[in-house]
């Protein structure tokens, strides 16, 4: 199971919990395993001044500063994934072969501005 990041109701840019259930999307008859997985997503603010733990780029630091001076003209930087993990999915393909495939960047581990 993917590590579950510290998901607290903080307004800052952080991973947010999101569980993807394959049966919810109607794929349970061809995906053998897993039945679902913790994908997470990024959400939250990138306020001025950007705290060090917000994994920000230099440009984001500039943009938050400009946003603080001109909030209408320049938006805050985006909160996006900066570290992701892969998952493996075991499934039947269109020819009933059994396939184990590795998919990159399927779990959000860390977010940044």
């Amino acid at each position, binding site marked *: *199971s*993917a*590590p579950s990041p510290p998901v607290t109701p903080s307004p800052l840019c952080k991973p947010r919990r999101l569980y993807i259930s394959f049966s919810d*999307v109607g*794929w349970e*008859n*061809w995906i*053998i*395993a*897993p039945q679902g997985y913790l994908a997470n997503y990024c959400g939250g603010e990138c306020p001025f001044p950007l705290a060090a733990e917000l994994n920000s*780029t230099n440009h984001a630091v500039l943009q938050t500063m400009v946003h603080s001076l001109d909030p209408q003209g320049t938006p805050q930087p985006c909160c996006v994934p*900066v*570290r992701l*993990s*892969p*998952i*493996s*999915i*075991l*499934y*039947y*393909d*269109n*020819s*009933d*072969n*059994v*396939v*184990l*495939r*590795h*998919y*990159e960047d399927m*779990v959000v*581990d860390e977010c*940044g501005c």
Partner: protein
Amino acid sequence: LSPQESALLRSLGLSHKPSPKSPAPVPPVLWRIFHKRRTLPGPQAELESCRVEELNVPGSIVRVFADQGRFLPEGQPQGRLCLRKLLFFNLSALEEGERLTMAQLELRFHHSSYHGPSPGQVLELRLYRASPRGLPRPGRGPLLERSFVQLRKSLLFDLSAALKAGEAPARNLALLLEISASGGPGSPRSLCGASDAFAATSLLLVTLGRQCGAARSRR
């Protein structure tokens, strides 16, 4: 399909939603690889995303293809020939840009043969490249030849070199399997007892998907 579902399937490398008709059981080796990967922490899973440690080869996709061939000629084999079978694998599921790194053929028998042929007798197994109709490729020797005193429940053969690992495999693979008994006294038919327990064949292919070729810059 909704546009979202189509887009998601495409991102997973699938042209449309599979609807298995006669799903085969999942081979134990795939379960082992799957469960081992799930226990890996994120960063290590990332490092091993393009390698199958269990089989010690590069790869990001492992597929097991079921044999769609038939026994040749129809009816009982004659003489010392115990079994003659066309093995046919539909490889059309492989995508452009996938690179083959391992090919392993598995022959399964209902049970191990505890009492092989009589002393001095062996079972000989030969595998040939064949046309989809089961005709051996003229002028080509066998891909592999093995002799067995006793047959185990599962026999594994590495065909990577024969399928020229690293190249894109063809859309299908046709092989001719022959098992015959040789040497020693006794009626030919009685020599074939062990091979009568032939159960099924499958082909395991490991490939490197396109994602394993492209180096991507990371922030």
